[in-house]
């Protein structure tokens, strides 16, 4: 299980990295933390001609709160969500999910943006980024564009990023007041990819009544699937019943696959149960913040 031959280059600056990607096109592959790419190299399922290591580009290894968003650079490691209190406070949903991403020794290296670019449909961060309405900055020598998660994920392990583009930062919009989040998943074992993962953002009004809830589900399609309470369960009524209605309508819109770990029916059951539980928890937290 040794990687196939390739050439390697570690640019010091973003401009250099973009120039390398422009030069080598589809021969090039970006490596940051490498926690998804290295196993694929070991299995010889990835065969880059040139590996462009962006790990040495200092400007990409920072996160910062901005006026209306939190900006996370491309090489910010997942472990920082669990180890830096301010970062966790800025991205509480991602921090809650981070405990489920692999294990300490993979979170040491694995990056937040890298997980999004890997686009595993059962991964934790893609559903979080989706439910939070986050956007990625994609840059190339030709310029820069912002892309929303819904337009970024294309299929399982595939995104719409261009071959000369680099995802340089994640922008997570500031979450309004009276917003609560929750992340839940069922995996075969702790740290495994989820069978079903659900991320939720919920808002309550000043009186504490449920206003809106958005859920994004992983493991039930080729990419995260996002649903809004206001669209699927617009009526009023008692909150528990409304959440249950929402969960039921979410499941009605899913067509999950079966694999060796779970049947489609089990994924549906989990999707409904976890959606209900995640919304309830997120609403409770929104109320706590009210």
């Amino acid at each position: 299980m040794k990687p196939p031959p390739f050439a390697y280059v570690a640019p010091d600056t973003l401009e250099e990295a973009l120039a390398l990607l422009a030069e080598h096109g589809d021969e090039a592959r970006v490596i940051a933390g490498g926690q998804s790419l290295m196993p694929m190299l070991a299995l010889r399922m990835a065969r880059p001609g040139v590996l462009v290591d962006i790990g040495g580009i200092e400007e990409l290894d920072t996160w910062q709160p901005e006026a209306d968003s939190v900006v996370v650079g491309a090489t910010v490691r997942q472990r920082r969500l669990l180890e830096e209190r301010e970062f966790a406070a800025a991205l509480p949903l991602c921090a809650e999910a981070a405990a489920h991403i692999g294990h300490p020794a993979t979170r040491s290296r694995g990056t937040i943006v890298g997980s999004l670019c890997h686009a595993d449909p059962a991964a934790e961060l893609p559903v979080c980024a989706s439910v939070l309405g986050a956007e990625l900055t994609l840059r190339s020598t030709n310029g820069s564009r912002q892309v929303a998660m819904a337009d970024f994920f294309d299929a399982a392990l595939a995104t719409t990023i261009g071959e000369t583009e680099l995802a340089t930062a994640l922008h997570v919009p500031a979450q309004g007041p009276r917003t609560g989040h929750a992340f839940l998943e069922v995996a075969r074992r702790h740290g495994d990819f989820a069978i079903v993962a659900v991320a939720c953002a919920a808002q309550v009004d000043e009186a504490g009544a449920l206003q809106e809830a958005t859920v994004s589900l992983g493991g039930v399609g080729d990419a995260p699937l996002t649903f809004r309470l206001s669209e699927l369960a617009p009526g009023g009524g008692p909150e528990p019943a409304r959440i249950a209605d929402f969960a039921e309508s979410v499941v009605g819109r899913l067509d999950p696959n079966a694999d060796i770990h779970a049947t489609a029916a089990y994924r549906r059951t989990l999707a409904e149960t976890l959606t209900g539980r995640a919304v309830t928890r997120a609403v409770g937290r929104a109320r706590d913040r009210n």
Partner: protein
Amino acid sequence: MGLFGKRQTRAEDDALLTGRGRYVDDIRYPGMVHVALVRSQAARARITVDVSEAQALPGVIAVVTAADLPPDARVLPDCHPNPALPDPAEPPVLADGEVRYVGEPIVAVVAESRYLAEDGAELVEVDYDTQPAMIDPEAAAASGAEKVHGTRESNIATEIRLATGDPEKAFASAAHVVSDRLTIQRGAGQAMETRGIVANWDGLQEKMVVWNVSQVPYVHRHAIARALGLDENSVQVLNGDVGGGFGYKGLTYVEDVLIPVIARMLDRPVKWIEDRAEHLIAAYHERTQIHDLEMALDAEGLILGMRGRFIHDTGAYVPWGPVVPLLTAVNIPGPYKVPNFAVECDVVYTNTVPVAPVRGAGRPQACFVMERLLDLAARMLDIDPADLRRRNLIPEDEYPYKLGFVSRDGTSRTYDSGNVPALLDRALELLGYDAARQEQESARAGGRRLGIGMACCVEDTGLGPFEEVNMAIEADGSVTVRMGTPSQGQGQKTAFAQIAADAFDLPFERVRVLAGNTEQVRYSIGTFASRAGVVTGSAVQEAALQLKDRVLQFAGALLQTPAGDLELKDGGVQRTDDPSSRISLPEIVETSLGESGSPLALREFGPGMSVTGSFSPATNTFATGVHAALVEVDEATCQISILKYVAVEDFGNLINPLITDGQVLGGVALGVGNTFFEKVHYDPDGQILTGTFADYLMTTTMDMPRVEIDYIATPSPLNPLGLKGAGQGGTIPVPAVLAGAVEDALQPTTLRLRDVPFSESDLHQLLSGAAA
């Protein structure tokens, strides 16, 4: 005295904790070259191979196909002949024109590094003319099925029949009959160290030196010598530290022969380290069996008889003959009285990885089917499951207990000693059985689902024919023990030093135990089937008694005192009535070896303080155990939590309870995996879908409950120290316990757990189909 039975920390540990262990991948020779194997990607196909591109790659030294092998090294002969399987299919060392399972070795690429060898392996072109593959053992057993081995009449490798009493009569008179179809799926050993071999022809000594990870180095020595046309003593098999065995390293694989043959062909040291991807598709598997069994009971719940049949999937070959299904068949009655018993088994070839013992070796299946039937009977008869078991367990005063049929070793199967009713009582006490039942009731009222499971098992351990031990007192008065059974982590160096140190009244640190080298002792069988502790341990005791006698006789001659009036004390021999009359062990050794050029002082003794002793048990000794668990099931998500797990074991007298604790805990972890996680998935074409650790799942820290362990000893009468084996007892009952507990949690429904392993998703499917 006094080290026997002590929780002695291990002599092995300091090196392993500081990175100074020496595993096969740590062995390096100058000029060593590396092998990567091209393995079959088809389950059944005719193949043609083109190696020209691989040969042309810079860094590739040789590309070896079946045709390149010497005639004696083209087929791996049966290494474990067994009368129950007269004509086993023997695998080609490299596939020759035909492949029979995904993962079968076809071509060996030899290169300057493993990286380059893998590059070369990718350039080997194998053309597959695929044929229909037989993956499902029931389909393979059917008449007219496509044949795994074209020259054979059918896919049935052999049939096993076992009977005692009159089952027909028992069933005719039964008040109740329970029956079920029960399935155990395929799993794997997955030691953290994969297999590996380093072979080097030593021209000076004219011998083939082979480092490998074998549990049976003397068997490998024989196979390698035969393939190379050498005398056995011109082959030396060495094991350094070995990273776990779990049974499947106790078999001979084609690579065990192939790598030394390549080393001889190239006259260079050759290393092959199996990588995990290879291991997952090519190291031997175990467990697939499908049982159709029924149990007859009287109105009081006493078992009158059992009968039925099962299919055992042996894969494409039979590396250890029919030993796994034989062990299942003889172990089905377990520690219960089953006066009338008849079981038949078809051993079936399929186009899958060959099947051989993995820790537990046929017994987890036996325990699972017996205990699942007991749970079913308890429910049908409305008897508490613990009570039903108690009624049927062999009572203490009926040991030794004859079962009425023969064991794996051909002897009349007789449980030498035991007291399983006491183990059950203790297990239920540790679990807090009555309180747990109450908790279960009250939890149910609150919507929580708790369940209790239990299982009782026996394990045939310490089987023959023998082990040999050499023991010597060194010039400094320390003792060296040399043996043939290698360790894969069991702590033999520690346990056997405890036995020897006691015999000589030496501190633990003054005994050194050496193994892992076929030149240490002349003969040995190997480490498997929970036998080394019992058989080698007894041989250590035997050698120690002989050497002690020699020392005392010799010292008696020197001190002019009858040996009976002497004792070994503090590193010397002294008169029991006059400690001042004393001679130290170094002095004894020095005297026994004399001086160069002079006659020996005591010629009649011959030189040195070294003896070779052995132990040959009359038959197996039987370890027993009872495990019980309390679990909780989240009905909405089907997630299972093990709230409490207890294991009460009878391993006879314990040499070192710290080590046996470790054996139990590791065994339970495998058993938890066998219940929930560990499953080799084949698709209908014979492709393995569990080719990485992302899909072949094993128990982690988060899945393991804290296990409470206790022991009750009924010492074996079959060996001098009263020992029984401890290697597999931890694993055997676990699937039965946990399946029973989960099923219990979900009562009252028609849900039955008939199949292990089962995932949360499997449980969900069963629950969806079960009636309330």
